[in-house]
């Protein structure tokens, strides 16, 4: 992964910052160039909520290239409190204990290392909600 490519996604991946339509308020995650609801191309910055509920998940045993050291790990789809749905990893929990419908919260974690000399990639993952 090139450094600029990693760097320009930091607002989304590390801070859950995205955009919403200035005309109709529809939240776009990931950001879009044109609102799928009303057709406007005017957007304003928007911070996604950090808590949500797990919609579905999988335990990855046969990983894609670059993730060879990581399995088993959990990839999940989370519905945030504002209704926005996002894909990330579920962390800080044994894979066998992950359940559909469980409450989760955002947490900053390492995703993967780019070999011995590349960048170490970080992002928001979700862990079981700690009250």
């Amino acid at each position, binding site marked *: 992964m090139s450094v600029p490519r990693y760097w320009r996604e930091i607002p989304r991946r590390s801070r859950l910052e995205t955009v919403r339509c200035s005309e109709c308020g529809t939240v776009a995650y*990931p950001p879009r160039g044109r609102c799928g609801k009303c057709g406007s191309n005017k957007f304003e910055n928007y911070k996604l909520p950090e808590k949500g509920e797990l919609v579905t998940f*999988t*335990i990855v045993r046969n990983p*894609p*290239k670059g993730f060879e050291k990581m399995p088993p790990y959990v*990839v999940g*789809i989370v519905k945030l409190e504002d209704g926005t*749905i996002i894909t990330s990893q579920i962390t800080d929990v044994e*894979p066998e204990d992950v359940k559909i419908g469980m409450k989760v919260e955002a947490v900053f974690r390492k995703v993967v290392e780019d070999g011995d000399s590349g960048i170490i990639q970080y992002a928001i993952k979700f862990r079981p909600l700690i009250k």
Partner: protein
Amino acid sequence: MRKVAIAGIGMTKVDKHWKRSLRELFGEAGAAALSQTGFPTVDALIVGNMCASDLSDQNNIGALLADYLGFMPNTAYRVEAACASGGAAFLAAYTAVASGMYDVVMTGGVEKLTDGVGGNTTLSLGKAADAEYELFYGSSFVSLNAMIMRHYMNHYNVPRDAFADFSVLMHKNGARNPLAQLPFEIKRETVLESDMISDPITLFDCAPVGDGAAALILCPLEDAKKYSDNFVEVAGISGATDTINIASREGLLSFKSTIVAADRAYKMAHISPADVDVAEIHDTFTITGVLSLEDLGFCERGKFHKMIANGAFETGGVVTVNPSGGLKSRGHPVGATGAYQIAELFLQLTGRAGKMQVPDASIGVAQNIGGSGSSTYVTVLRRV
């Protein structure tokens, strides 16, 4: 718009073709297809392919394959729409003939997956998904579909074991297909006891990795009789798209792209799902096959296991599904799969499908999905 016919087809066996290259595979299928017609050459070559850039270090394969086949058409190019490359190429070729722009078009697809080394093949296939917002988090093509399958099981309270019956049926069919990659029958246990890839998807829920090529010759329907002994009409056709990111969809219990494409293609052909005799549907994973059955209107939602047990998808049932063995048993040479489906239906509707033949088949439907439902192409063929 002119009516369009398929006047000839060619297919290689789907296999790990260690001895044969990308150009040789399409060369065999293309030459076979053209030789079934009286056309000396073609006006255009529009070929589906997903992974040549990654795995064969080759772009510009339109020119490469036309050169290899010994003709120099007006235009020759590749269409890439992930697993739907073949279906998308077919739609482009159909449009070229229907519009009157070209009279004879060769379309089809080719995929050479076994030239990938290390994890490159899996990586290349994964690129059907959103690189920055799905793949970045360590998800793969399998894991995205595994999430869809778990969601389905949870919503309908369908046991995991039920999906094994779909694989068993595909292998039962594929065992009769001389061009299938995995032409053997399996048991339920084969699926349930195979390696877990991404929970709940096991190895035998997945289509295998293989190479292959299929080619089709399209021409105006009114000319087909003059140039070929066997031809079928393209009676309906449509594509439809959805978000690339599965989390952005309206829901994960169906693929909207299939529902919309099927609706448009059925309307164009003036048919309903009940009129379909034989269907070649897109079953990359068992869950994909199940959603396709439902989205095409062949199966009540959440009830597929009961319908499979009743023989609904075999000859004598609701519709004969994947007599070729489908992606699961015939194999899934990704960018060529959509072309295989249509070529197999061509054999069915011209009564030349051998041991796979569905008696008196007159309406066939092919459904080719790209990515995890980000696009679907549905084609309706009619016996002439």
